[in-house]
């Protein structure tokens, strides 16, 4: 349970509203400036998140004390900038941004097939930055979200309908079955279903994998579903490379077969995620004990 995400996403309803207001009235760079101050508040007043970033920096990235202290701020500020960017882009300011593409042609060919497909991302960078690109195809997107994330987004949508235009949300509740039918139906209709392949809420259904050289748990559901339904899978990440510049990284997963198909799919996912995180470690936005380092630390202490 220690490493399990608690079902709440940082930067929920209130955060979105503030940044939307500043972006609209003062501009994106003013929102960055405000964010550079706001993140200072989060460092002491979000102790669990800060502790998680610290462990990530020290134990996973192997940074020293001073570098880790700087990294904590850098990680929070990077998240803040992504938050500003996703609100600005979704609010129609994408023309002010520069977008670069990796494997764009293969993705275009893939989307043109109009087959149901699974798009798998993670809580790195800003996947919402790619909304204008996906909308270009007029393709229906179904975003699978955990209930608490969905509730926060719904509140914002009430006050700002321009956010997430055209996206359909499939809310996931581990005690309900509805999402399974909605997902299979969307794939049958030839639509894309987007998952975040790094977080889970059901600790009984996990896949073990290795990310950045350390063991971690991943949700079984998305990988099992993609493998069982035989849906083509595209890994997608939108990474911030410079101020107001994003690189969209797409990679079609190799087909997987057999009983270990979900594990094989996860292995492809973590391999690409690993590569991306080594380039952009500050854009890892899981502010909880993802690698269960706290528990592992205790076990090491007990053995010693």
């Amino acid at each position: 349970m220690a490493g399990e995400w608690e079902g709440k996403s940082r930067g929920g309803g209130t955060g979105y509203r503030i940044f939307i207001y500043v972006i609209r009235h003062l501009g994106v760079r003013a929102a960055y400036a405000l964010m550079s101050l706001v993140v200072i508040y989060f460092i002491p007043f979000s102790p669990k998140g800060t502790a998680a970033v610290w462990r990530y920096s020290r134990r996973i990235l192997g940074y020293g004390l001073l570098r880790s202290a700087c990294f904590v701020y850098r990680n929070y500020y990077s998240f803040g900038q992504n938050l500003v960017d996703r609100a600005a882009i979704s609010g129609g300011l994408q023309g002010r941004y520069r977008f670069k593409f990796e494997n764009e042609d293969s993705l275009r060919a893939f989307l043109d097939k109009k087959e149901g497909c699974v798009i798998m991302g993670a809580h790195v960078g800003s996947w919402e930055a790619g909304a204008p690109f996906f909308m270009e195809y007029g393709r229906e997107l179904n975003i699978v979200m955990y209930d608490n994330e969905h509730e926060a987004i719904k509140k914002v949508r009430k006050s700002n309908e321009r956010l997430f235009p055209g996206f359909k949300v499939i809310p996931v509740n581990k005690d309900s079955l509805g999402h399974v039918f909605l997902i299979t139906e969307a794939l049958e209709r030839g639509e894309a279903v987007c998952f975040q392949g790094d977080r889970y809420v059901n600790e009984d259904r996990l896949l073990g994998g290795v990310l950045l050289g350390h063991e971690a748990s991943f949700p079984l559901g998305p990988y099992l579903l993609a493998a069982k339904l035989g849906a083509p899978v595209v890994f997608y990440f939108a990474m911030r490379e410079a101020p107001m510049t994003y690189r969209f990284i797409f990679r079609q997963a190799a087909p997987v077969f057999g009983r270990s198909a979900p594990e094989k799919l996860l292995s492809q996912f973590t391999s690409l995620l690993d590569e991306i995180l080594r380039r952009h470690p500050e854009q890892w936005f899981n502010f909880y004990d993802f690698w269960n380092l706290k528990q592992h630390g205790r076990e090491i202490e007990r053995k010693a």
Partner: protein
Amino acid sequence: MEERNELVQKLKGELIDALNLEEIDPEGIGTDESLFGAEGLGLDSIDALEIILLLDRNYGIKIKNPAEGKEIFKTVGTIADYILAHKAE
């Protein structure tokens, strides 16, 4: 009625295979026992996916409507009734 009983028994065996319920035998699953939730068999959404695939693969039945799906997946008996109703169509 006999046809339903046969189908119920067959379904129980298929569920045990598909869901890897090795510790349970067909007699251990009540025809009207809840499949999902805290009471009954305690299956979850991953199991629901397996049942969706099973119905498609073995009976050519696709369930798309979530509200309808929840009703159909209540018990082995309700799944059997749905299969029989669709056969009649």
